[in-house]
């Protein structure tokens, strides 16, 4: 159905997928969905004309008319000498925000996490998700004046497959079998197996496009809305407006300076004293302080970040299903939400798909807090009255506090938990997934499929609990090739149910990310649920209004 030639009344890819998502929410029938897809073909894109000059951006919300000019200073929660302008190596919020300033991807996410055209004017799959053709926008130049060509795209994507690159997105790139240029403006990507989410994968910040043959990334040469004027890792970066930016009229600000302030109270103080105009990673406790200030506001977004209890199925006693189920009944989720995160969180249901995700399965019954039931299950598992260590660390946000609350509820169910606190330094390589009972923290992933593939597939290196479920693996593989949105949604619902019931992962809440900003910084209404700083993309959208 995707290989129709010249479909009548072709819709732009963005409008198309947005419409489908909208309809899904309203409860579109499968037949209706199929009909809509049938008209245009999934991910068939227009020649760009219908996108208009807004190039796919929805309205900017209620902040008024954008103004040009002004400079702001932004403080992120971490900066160190390992800061990098190599998109493939980005690892913290300050890296991602800088990459969004200096580079563009082939595609980019909108507010519903649907991939929209960016450097690729349109993209299409001819065979249900295995072979993809990306057509590049014309007239785009890099900061050094070199025009964007297909060779740059081939270089930027192929490098993720080389282990020497040290790419953080290598596990996503392994499914790419071949990337080749067809002329100077078209790129063909072939996958090992069909995946209709490829455009979403290419919107990930690691996949940004750099000039062919780049070795030294410290200059930040890209096609993005800002040019890198100064970059000194761990100290600061200065981006100045790229006057040749291909998106008409943007960006609005003249200059953005980015620094890192790792100490949270210092970061909040710097915002309140007017030294910086935007900060991220505000704690729930401090959000109130910012709200009380007349000149400042907080923006809290739930992107599906979660801290989870990891119960390894290959170790004792966490391999016993009754024990795992008992632990899930021991989360007093309301209390965790209130006491640990000051209500800046959403109740979760022991599966990793957040309510903001289009595939969220809302009909799955919420698991309650039930110590009596847990006691019964623990008895069944034969661990009643046992003494068990649980490993917590500041590396996994809030895990120490969650562990204390869990310890209290476990006591009521006749289980003695001892909390083993370990430092965050080296936590991920030395403790994470290595103890029967410990904590992990998973940052938001752009799509449900990426999240499930990276953390729940049997063969995934970060399959936290080490569970193996054939049914789940089959569903996951099939869902990648399933063009019918309704069928796909049902598959995701089934996968969420499987994780909720059987996986050795307990997810009590989804944690909000909180930004603090000066109220004169406008245009901060857009929400891309990927993390703070408007899903790291603020630079292109905000403006400064002194009035």
């Amino acid at each position, binding site marked *: 159905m995707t290989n129709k030639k010249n479909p009548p009344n072709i819709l732009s890819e963005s409008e198309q997928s947005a419409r489908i998502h909208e309809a899904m929410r309203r409860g579109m029938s499968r037949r209706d969905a199929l009909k809509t897809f049938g008209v245009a073909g999934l991910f068939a894109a227009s020649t760009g004309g219908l996108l208009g000059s807004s190039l796919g951006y929805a309205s900017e919300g209620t902040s008024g008319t954008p103004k040009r000019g002004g400079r702001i200073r932004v403080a992120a929660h971490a900066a160190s000498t*390992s800061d990098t302008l190599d998109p493939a190596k980005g690892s913290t919020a300050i890296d991602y925000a800088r990459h969004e300033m200096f580079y563009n991807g082939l595609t980019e996410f909108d507010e519903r996490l649907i991939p929209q055209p960016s450097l690729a004017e349109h993209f299409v799959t001819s065979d249900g998700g295995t072979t993809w053709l990306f057509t590049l926008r014309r007239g785009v130049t890099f900061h050094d004046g070199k025009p964007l060509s297909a060779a740059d795209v081939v270089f930027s994507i192929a490098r993720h497959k080389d282990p020497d690159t040290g790419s953080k997105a290598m596990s996503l790139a392994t499914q790419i079998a071949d990337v080749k240029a067809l002329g100077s403006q078209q790129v063909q990507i072939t996958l090992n197996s069909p995946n209709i989410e490829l455009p979403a994968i290419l919107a990930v910040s690691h996949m940004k496009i750099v000039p062919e043959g780049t070795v030294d990334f410290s200059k930040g040469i890209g096609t993005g809305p800002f040019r890198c004027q100064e970059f000194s890792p761990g100290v600061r970066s200065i981006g100045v407006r790229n006057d040749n930016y291909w998106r008409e009229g943007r960006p609005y600000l003249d200059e953005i300076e980015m620094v890192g*302030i790792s100490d949270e109270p210092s970061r909040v103080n710097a915002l309140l004293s007017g030294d910086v105009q935007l900060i991220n990673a505000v704690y729930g406790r401090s959000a109130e302080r910012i709200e009380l200030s007349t000149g400042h506001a907080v923006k809290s977004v739930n992107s599906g970040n979660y801290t989870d209890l990891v119960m390894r199925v290959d170790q004792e006693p966490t391999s016993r299903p009754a024990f795992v189920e008992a632990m899930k009944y021991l989360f007093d989720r309301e209390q965790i939400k209130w006491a640990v995160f000051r209500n800046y969180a959403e109740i979760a249901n022991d599966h990793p798909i957040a309510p903001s995700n289009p595939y969220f399965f809302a009909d799955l019954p919420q698991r309650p807090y039930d110590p009596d039931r847990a006691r019964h299950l623990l008895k069944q598992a034969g661990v009643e009255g046992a003494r068990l260590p649980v490993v917590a660390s500041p590396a996994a946000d809030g895990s120490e506090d969650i562990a204390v609350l869990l310890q209290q509820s476990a006591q009521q169910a006749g289980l003695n938990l001892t909390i083993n606190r370990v430092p965050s330094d080296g936590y991920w390589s030395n403790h994470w997934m290595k103890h029967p009972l410990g904590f992990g923290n998973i940052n938001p992933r752009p799509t449900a499929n990426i999240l499930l593939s990276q953390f729940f597939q049997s063969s995934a290196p970060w399959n936290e609990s080490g569970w193996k479920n054939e049914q789940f693996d089959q569903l996951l593989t099939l869902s990648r090739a399933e063009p019918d949105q309704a069928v796909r949604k049902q598959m995701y619902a089934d996968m969420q149910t499987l994780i909720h019931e059987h996986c050795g992962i307990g997810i009590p809440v989804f944690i909000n990310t909180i930004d603090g900003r000066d109220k004169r910084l406008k245009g901060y209404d857009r929400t891309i649920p990927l993390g703070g700083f408007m899903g790291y993309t603020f630079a292109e959208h905000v403006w400064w209004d002194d009035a």
Partner: protein
Amino acid sequence: MNNSIFKIVLGRLSSGVSTLLIVSLVIFAITALLPGDAAQQILGQFATPEQVAALRIQLGLDQPAPLRYLSWLGGLLSGDLGQSVSNAMPVSELMAGRLPNSLLLAGITTVIAVPIALLLGIASAMCRDRLLDRILNVCTLSMVAVPEFLVATLAVLIFAVHLGWLPALSYVSTVEGVGDFIRIYAMPVLTLCAVLVAQMARMTRAAIINQLDSPYIEMARLKGIGPLRRVLNHALPNALGPIANAVALSLSYLLGGVIIVETIFNYPGIAGLMVDAVANRDLALVQACAMLFCAAYLVLVLIADLCAILSNPRLRHQ
């Protein structure tokens, strides 16, 4: 006399070099004991084993530890501090960006803290057990006891957030004019002075009181010499040795020990660089910073000893 001082300096320098060598060995060993290595640290939470292996080879981490130490040492001897593994920049370049900031902060603090400390210490010693001395004692003792993160945070809350007089962060790069300079450095220097002045003043007081109790001061007093002259001309030169050592110890802290002040005021100094380096298991950078701190400490102690010797004829002619 010149000859003997020359000998002392030479002896100290040669023992300093061996101290540095031992320190570098100890630091290398301790860093190697830390869990995880640079490759794991760079690739982070979601690294694949394949990538870690590739990066280890790329960074030369697959070689045995003694060999890596020797190659670092060889580089050092030929003047090459090596490359930072976390961002592939030369260590010397990274340090050159931060060291002037640290030296500037240390310099300003020294210029302000040392005279104040000496003044307070001497005044306190001269008025021993009188009201002024008691007040100064209470003040300096409480200053020593209050941790600097508290002083710094309170200062920010009062002067930056509520009064809005001073910036909460120190941006060394945006200094325009003397007014800016004072505003930017006021709080970090205040915080550092609070701790240092108290320590040095107490040591000065103790050293001078020690001298004031000795028979020659009694003699001077019987001869009718006034209190000020007794302290400045007679007691102080004899107390200079211990005072200089106390000052040197306090100042050596200004280079590597100011991490809290650097963090709270977001001041890009060299202490923060070393903390980053340890967190990233960036061995070349850790070593270079450690060598620098150690060398600075040795030089300061050497200067203090020279002061003591030059000010005291008895030591001079030994």
